[in-house]
């Protein structure tokens, strides 16, 4: 599948910002089933520094500095991405989850223990027995990992209400567990907390989801949102992704931008501004399917 994606972030400030620094995770990374054909940035006002690099997790990241006074900052990224459908393993064929846990816990470096990178506390995700307790019914003894993951994903989907007013980016995931409501980012953090608390490496995937308009209605421009889901390490099979917000395993309508331990590693546009006072944020995203696959 081929997509043209436009991601426009605009900040308007109450008073002048004298200068600001940002780190953007907006350029989708290349994966075995995803190629980036085109990518471009448009930034207003003109930045004094645009420094691309690859971050610790292999994601493309860009350091931006805007050093002239401004009341509004607009960052627009556009890209064309080709995504091929994944082939997730047969759930029953995946190893018992305890085997994966043991494989990842070795003292020597192996492809499994290397994923310990995603096993411990991270800024938004603590490991506690509350999360282990919530995960427990899905992770019964010797259950194949993917079966257990599908069950956990389904339980999060049914137990939790999607409610954009319930949380902010700063809501602790323990609170999400208690109040049973949130958005995709919260559900991804929750799933990660559950998996890590029982000893399984889990990472946060930031990306886009192609949405389909209701039947008979035209597609609304700018109606798409950035999305987040989770991936768990499965020894012998690699990373398996799951989308607890939609109760499914991602297919070719999920476009990956970046992954990390949690949101803080891959926030699409993180920044520190000097001055500015109150700020308003507006994000408009379009994920448009390009029919001509020769793109």
């Amino acid at each position: 599948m081929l997509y043209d994606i436009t991601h426009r972030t605009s900040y308007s400030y109450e008073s002048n910002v004298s200068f600001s620094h940002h780190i953007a995770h907006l350029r989708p990374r290349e994966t075995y089933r995803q190629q980036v054909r085109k990518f471009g940035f448009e930034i207003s006002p003109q930045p004094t520094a645009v420094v691309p690099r690859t971050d610790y997790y292999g994601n493309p990241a860009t350091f931006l500095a805007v050093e002239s006074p401004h009341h509004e900052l607009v960052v627009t990224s556009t890209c064309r991405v080709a995504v091929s459908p994944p082939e997730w393993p047969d759930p029953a064929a995946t190893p018992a989850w305890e085997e994966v846990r043991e494989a990842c816990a070795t003292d020597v470096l192996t492809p499994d223990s290397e994923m310990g990178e995603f096993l411990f506390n991270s800024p938004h995700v603590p490991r506690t027995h509350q999360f282990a307790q919530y995960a427990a019914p899905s992770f019964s003894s010797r259950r194949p990992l993917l079966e257990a993951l599908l069950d956990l994903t389904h339980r999060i989907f049914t137990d939790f209400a999607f409610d954009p007013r319930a949380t902010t980016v700063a809501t602790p995931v323990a609170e999400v567990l208690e109040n049973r409501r949130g958005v995709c980012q919260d559900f991804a953090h929750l799933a990660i907390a559950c998996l890590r608390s029982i000893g399984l490496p889990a990472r946060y995937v930031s990306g886009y989801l192609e949405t389909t308009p209701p039947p008979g209605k035209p597609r609304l421009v700018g109606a798409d949102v950035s999305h987040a889901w989770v991936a768990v390490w499965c020894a012998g099979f690699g990373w398996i992704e799951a989308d607890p917000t939609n109760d499914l395993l991602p297919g070719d309508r999920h476009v990956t931008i970046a992954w990390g331990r949690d949101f803080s590693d891959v926030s699409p546009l993180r920044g520190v501004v000097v001055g500015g006072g109150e700020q308003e944020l507006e994000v408009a995203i379009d994920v448009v399917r390009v029919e001509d696959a020769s793109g």
Partner: protein
Amino acid sequence: MISSPLSHSAVVGGYQPPTGAFDEVKTGAAEVRPVCQALMSAVDRLGAAGLNDRREHAHQLLREHGVTYNVYADGHSAERPWNLDMLPLLIDADEWARLEAGLIQRTRLLNLVLADIYGPQRLLQEGLLPPALLHANPGFLRPCHGVRPPGDQHLTLHAVDITRAPDGQWWVLVDRTQAPSGVGYTVENRVVLSRVLSEEFRSHQVQRLAGFFLRRKEGLRALAPWTDSPNIVLLTPGPLNETYFEHAYLARYLGYALVEGNDLTVRDRRVYLKTIEGLQPVDVIIRRVDDTFCDPLELRSDSFLGVPGLVEAARAGNVAISNALGSGAVEAPALLAFLPALAKHLLGEDLLIPNVATWWCGQQREREHTLGRLDRLVVKRAFVGNEIVPQFTETMDEGARREIAAQVRANPHAFVGQERVPLSTAPVWTGDRLEPRPMLLRCYICATPNGYTVMPGGLTRVSASAGSPIVTSRFGGGSKDTWVLSSGPVEEVSLLDKGGRPTRVERNVSQTPSRVVENFFWLGRYAERLEDSTRLLRTVLSRLAGETGPVEAAERAAMIRTMIGREKLPEDFDENAHFDELADELRALLFDEERIGSVHELLRRVAYLTASVRDRLSGDTWRILNHLQTEFPEPIANISIHSMLGILHRLIMQLAAFSGMGMENTTRGHAWRFLDIGRRLERADNLMSTLQIVLETDAKNPAALVPLLEYSDSTMTYRRRYLATPELPQVLEVLLGDASNPRALAFQIDALRRHFVELPEHQREHPEAVKFAEQHAIFSGASFHALGLAASKGQAQPLKHLLERLLEGCRETSDLLTAHYFSHVLARPN
């Protein structure tokens, strides 16, 4: 030899070291060790009285130097005086040479480990470090991976806490690689002890500390190979930090600017210092802020102590940081378990100073080992320093041990088991005897262009009581100077040349951060506001004391009206109020620190500002400002009028001494200029406000003029000129128009005019310059005598109008000035 030949005094003879630990002074058989014999003879010669005398002298020096350690309790911080024992720890030259080699080896090793984990991570691939040791380590900062510091120097200042096992073997307990503290206290201990024990110090051939700092400075310069004269700054979290004293002290000792995160800014991936002359590039940062707080953009986003973009500047190779961001990763106690093997692998050597045996519970076998031996081990956090109290499971009951075991099983990566090492003991003088106390010696190693070098000495810390196994300043222990004896002649170096000037002119010495200048401006304003309040209060109080007649009563009533107008007394206060009621109000004006404009409240503000510019004040100036605080009494409920007057007289003397210091002992830099501008603007403002009120309430009342002259310290000026009872036209002439009277408005305006043309990048069209020129013109055109004559005949309106315009202008000038020079900095007071 039993004790020393001069054991007629019971001091040394009475010292009983405990059994089961190594004592630094006496052997098990209670003999004085050879290295200590000369010192112990001296101790016996001094006797209890001599030691107490020296101790008193040392306390006095420490108080005068303002050596403190901020202690946090119940969310409040308190400055605690630094505690220095009279007996130094002695180490002989041979033993020290062995320690030096071991310490340097350790710094080399940890630097190589840092270069690996922030680079290729071969140690993981080669099985020398379990991957989880890095993955679970919160000190391992992922954004810093791949950032190569200049010369691959991650660790340029390393501190190692060592002690001696009962057999005399030195052991390493803890490494400090984040932002090691204590260097400044070590110097201060030396400065003080070498003075109070000057004869002993001379006769012992003690190795000097200054050479270490010269080499440290060379090392810091070498961190910025891109320039010949690097600009080096010391980054502090600010005055509330527990070791702020030391930050200020070191900045001054080394000759670097002391800056806070807000003083620095990153532009175009370079770090700059904001000064009132513009942005100055910074090449090297000595960091006393923990690395996770150093950059809200890439590290902890909730930090207000850092510099946004600092990681990117380091990544671009445009700034060197000592220690490099991320170096806290190797002070994890868990790493101790792996260092012996790492030393073999990376250096091909055995550790010269062994570690305390450590088992990291993140490994299964080690975890079981630890849990099986809780009766003999200490359980500690694997990745946090000693902020969390170690658990001495050895002495716990079964239930408490089970609780610890459950915590370890639930989160094994977070814990280590450690062998319990009995700390060596050293005698501490308690005032009447020597008492053995467990001790730790903190040694310092720094990078230089020619490899690492060790400070010949260090910070010896002793526990708060003989029984306590915990040695840390947080829990109130004490400290000792550490004398490393020389086998040859002592190297005489100083950071000052023979003429007392720094041996090398640092480019940055004149670079004052705008925040500092702003704090000086407010210090000038608040010191003057304090003086104003003190004078108002004194003027009214002196009309309450003793037998007073109708004249005093009339003057007192006029002063009360003035103080109501100045908002020092409540709006509805009755000017004929009963004596007791008035006295109560005045006591509150003196002591109530919650009351805006009270003497105590203003004193507190002055104290805060003093602390924030402390590294810029001369020792004498600081002492005066410090006395202002320390000599101000605790509130006394029924204090007499007479005693209050005593307090106010003393305050005025001290404030006069502070102004005098400003005139006579301060270089005319920007800091001084803004201090004086603040003072002049404030004085002009207070004077005009007071005059406005007198004109409003007492324009035709001669009884108001005597106290007015007294309040503005112009009685003598008036008498010299007029030799008569005060009358309004003449009073106005003295208070407004007389440019030779330092209290007059004319004098303030003259002073401000001279300051303004000297301001950095002064331009006539700058808004504050335009505003001031306007004021100056209005002022110069006025005839105060004529206006005063009219006012005394009931025509006060033109004079009031003029004062109002001038007062408005004075306030606007102040706002424009601060906006121009400080606006890019967060506002501090108010």
